[in-house]
């Protein structure tokens, strides 16, 4: 139903790729992964949404929680390559400003 790929770049940026649907039954998994990264000292995180086919308000909640945790530790959380379905949810919830989507995972922390 969902899988998460978790990587760390040579620059120490955590890259989390949810593959499948981010909904009520999978959002908790994402939240735990993001919390785990931050508490292990990885506070710069990119969530690669290229393979996230669906996002609901629980998934959004997990992203916002991760964003806040990352910022509290002096880092940030950025989202990259959202699918059309995910982008629609960002826009409808007015979160496309705070979760400003980046075009690539590599360049997500460039600006």
């Amino acid at each position, binding site marked *: *139903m969902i899988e998460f790929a978790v990587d760390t770049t040579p620059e120490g940026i955590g890259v989390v790729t949810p593959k499948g*649907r981010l*909904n*009520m*039954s999978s959002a908790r998994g994402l939240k735990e992964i993001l919390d785990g990264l931050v508490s292990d000292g990885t506070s710069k995180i990119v969530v690669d949404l290229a393979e996230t086919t*669906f996002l*609901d*308000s*629980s998934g*959004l*909640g997990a992203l*916002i*929680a991760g964003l*806040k945790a990352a910022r509290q530790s002096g880092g940030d959380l950025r989202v990259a390559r959202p699918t*059309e*379905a995910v982008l*629609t*949810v960002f826009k*409808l*919830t*007015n*979160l496309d*400003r*705070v979760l400003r989507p980046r075009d690539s995972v590599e360049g997500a922390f460039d600006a």
Partner: protein
Amino acid sequence: MPETTVPGPDAGDENRVELSAPATPEMMHLVHAVLEQLWSQHEDVSMVDRMRFEMAVIEILGNIVEHAYAMESGGTERRFDVRLTATDAALVASFGDDGMPNTIDLSDVAMPDEEAESGRGLALAMAAVDDLTYDRSAGRNHWRLTCLRQPG
């Protein structure tokens, strides 16, 4: 002059799919699968209409699972049913559950601020569909979502 009957949003619903199942987070996947099935029977439904309908359906089901059955006391059955219909005019979902009554006035629903980690479900569902109604009758909650189809 021939008599004309304007078809209501439910006309032509012999392709409807009805599901009754336990109100658990795992059931989300099943409802996604039902929707996939519905689209395979209605390939003319535009991507935008599919997306907004699916979004709202999942949010309302999520609320039933999370809020209507929040406490052990909520309902005797912990089940929900849903009827999904796609016609030329509209996509309609009707939910029923015997959980606790909804306490939120839908006209008060607003999108919370950026920092909020929850509370976007109903606002998102309302933003996605053309009509969302709630009523409580015979000890059951009834939610009804309507997306008027837009030309694909």
